[in-house]
């Protein structure tokens, strides 16, 4: 069974990536040769292709697996994430899409240098871009590792290795142009891979009359379930539960004997198995709150500290953070005009809205059919485990393979986009562009998060992605918004703002990764600093710019002409 899953998954992944790379490399005009091909797809991508590619890069492991996992654990409180993600694109559309495309710059670093006329500002923005990209790559690696561990029982580093290998292969051979086609192709593949099993699962749930996840009791096993524990885990048992234990529970070794797990805390040692009968209450891993179904289904029902504050802060971070995601912004350059760029973003909104229905659905179904993930803590694997659980036998295995392949497509496509963005930024900033610099940049881009990946603690994939959004919202968002709409921004003001905002956000993020979650107001603020830091950054940028008014760049009026007037007007845009 497991061997079959591995074979299907890997066949699917290999076939998909092989097909995509062939399409990408030879689909249009032969292999990529010039620097322009590598960087900007020679600026000839239609809104539909481009929108598919943007959506593909955007719906990463976090959207795919993390959101479903968070819905499984926290329920209605996490429904805000898809809303914030889509709303972020509305903000991007109205505030910066047209002007950014019309400015004619490639990366965000180019924008800073051109708009503020300052070389140091280019480097400051490049640093921000790298941090955001690295924080965004981390969950891709983590997700790939979890996927292979849960589906095939392989160690996590195998997943990382596959992603690194495939991403470098694609990026180094084709650059941006092949990426655009690969990405666009992968978006529709991912949507299919999510939607088909979801529809099948919904039908089965309806036909079988499956239990309602919102009933007022703790989650229960729908069918007899044997849970394997790979690592030592602390459990919270909500009500007295009986189970057959094979392994070490609370320091005592059992060999398949029936044990009464009393309500409260227990410790299960590694390599233990507990078999629960149908209807038994699900023990929860320590870091996961125990919630009754009705509480789980209610927004702000409980289970988190300061949920309203956290929700507002996450929403603000996603709303404003989208515009600083480097791999999304460089895609506007491949549109032919500001107008085409705007239409692209509108299409992205439609595609994302469609896509984001499914993680929510999987999270809710997971509460019913795969509650043991609450016990093992592998909530990120909900989407992967569900199909096999509901459809036994070969069809289930094939469904699992399909979803796992879709997930790998997500890791690979998002990672490609970020690596291209970081590599482009690094090569242009340091070595002045060129294919060789780009390739070196790509290797650097992927090495840094790989070394950090070993440290990751309990933070889920979606948590890591919101960190990247928060850093972006706290640093690049104020720079972009003020740069586009306010003449008075000075290099010193922008630089100070970046240092303060980006510094606070990165510090909070690292504290979270290394130190783990903390409780109380201070913990809530550290977990979601956007609501405090974003206004602070805007304030710093504006105040310092006003104080250094003499340093406003000289060409600012010319810049405003280029940013805001339609391309059709023949005028001096230099």
């Amino acid at each position, binding site marked *: 069974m497991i061997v079959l899953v591995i074979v299907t998954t890997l066949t699917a992944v290999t076939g998909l990536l092989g097909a995509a790379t062939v399409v990408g490399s030879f689909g249009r005009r032969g292999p990529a040769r010039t620097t322009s091909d590598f960087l900007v797809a020679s600026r000839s991508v239609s809104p539909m292709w481009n929108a598919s590619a943007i959506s593909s890069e955007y719906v990463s492991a976090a959207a795919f697996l993390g959101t479903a996992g968070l819905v499984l654990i926290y329920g209605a409180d996490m429904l805000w994430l898809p809303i914030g993600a889509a709303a972020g694109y509305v903000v991007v559309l109205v505030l910066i899409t047209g002007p950014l495309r019309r400015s004619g710059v490639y990366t965000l670093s180019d924008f800073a240098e051109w708009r503020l006329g300052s070389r140091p500002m280019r480097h400051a923005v490049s640093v921000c871009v790298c941090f955001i990209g690295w924080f965004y790559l981390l969950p891709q690696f983590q997700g790939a590792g979890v996927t292979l561990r849960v589906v095939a029982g392989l160690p996590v580093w195998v997943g990382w290795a596959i992603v690194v290998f495939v991403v470098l292969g694609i990026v180094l051979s084709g650059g941006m142009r092949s990426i655009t086609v690969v990405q666009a192709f992968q978006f529709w593949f991912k949507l299919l891979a999510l939607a088909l099993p979801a529809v099948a699962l919904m039908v089965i749930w309806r036909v079988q009359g499956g239990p309602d996840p919102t009933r007022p009791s703790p989650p229960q096993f729908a069918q007899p379930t044997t849970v394997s524990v790979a690592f030592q885990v602390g459990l919270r048992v909500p009500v007295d539960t009986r189970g057959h234990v094979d392994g070490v529970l609370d320091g005592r070794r059992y060999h398949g004997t029936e044990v009464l797990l009393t309500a409260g805390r227990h410790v299960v040692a590694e390599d233990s198995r507990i078999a629960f009968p149908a209807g038994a209450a699900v023990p929860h891993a320590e870091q996961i709150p125990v919630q009754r179904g009705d509480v789980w289904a209610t927004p702000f029902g409980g289970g988190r500290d300061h949920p309203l504050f956290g929700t507002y802060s996450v929403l603000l971070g996603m709303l404003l953070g989208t515009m600083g995601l480097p791999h999304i912004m460089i895609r506007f350059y491949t549109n032919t005009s500001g107008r085409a760029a705007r239409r692209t973003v509108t299409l992205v909104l439609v595609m994302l809205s469609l896509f984001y229905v499914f993680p929510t659905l999987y999270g809710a179904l997971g509460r019913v059919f795969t509650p043991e993930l609450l016990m093992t803590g592998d909530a990120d694997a909900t989407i992967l485990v569900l199909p096999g659980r509901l459809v036994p036998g070969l069809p289930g295995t094939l469904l699992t393979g399909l979803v796992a392949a879709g997930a790998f497509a997500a890791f690979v496509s998002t990672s490609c986009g970020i690596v291209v963005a970081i590599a482009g930024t690094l090569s242009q900033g340091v070595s002045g562009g060129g294919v060789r610099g780009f390739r070196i940049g790509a290797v650097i881009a992927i090495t840094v998060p790989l070394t950090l990946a070993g440290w990751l603690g309990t933070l889920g994939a979606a948590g890591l992605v919101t960190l990247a959004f928060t850093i972006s919202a706290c640093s690049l968002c104020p720079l972009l918004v003020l740069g586009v709409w306010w003449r008075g921004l000075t290099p010193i003001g922008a630089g100070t703002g970046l240092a303060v905002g980006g510094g606070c956000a990165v510090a909070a993020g690292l504290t979270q990764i290394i130190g783990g979650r903390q409780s109380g107001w201070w913990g809530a603020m550290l977990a979601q600093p956007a609501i405090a830091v974003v206004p602070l950054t805007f304030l710093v940028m504006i105040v310092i710019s006003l104080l250094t008014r003499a340093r406003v760049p000289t060409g600012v009026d*010319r810049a405003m002409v280029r940013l805001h007037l339609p391309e059709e007007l023949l005028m001096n845009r230099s």
Partner: protein
Amino acid sequence: MAKQRRVVVTGPRTRGIRVPPYPTVTRDIDEQTELGAVYLRSMMRVQLRHALVTCGIVAAVVGLLPLVFALVPALSAIKALGVPLPWLVLGLGVQPLWIGAAAQYVRRTERAERDFIDVVTRS
């Protein structure tokens, strides 16, 4: 065959008068005269207004929805089609709103740009 009308073909009377190579307002903008600055500012103001209206809609929805669900827990008890109301609203209801707002913005701002091009190239 219809009677041919006589047409007088003339050139510029002196070498001193020339049709400007591009319309005058764009030259005003290019040379950064007062008039050009007025045109640029008016365009930016229109664009910013459209942008802020749309941002306002987003901010209102994102700001009020959590508050409503936090303050009126009774809403969460309502079920439609077997699904709790928050799940319907948050899962399916808000996204179409974003698409509508975005489409509306694109329509408005493209119209504003067309009008601006008309004004600039005609005058």
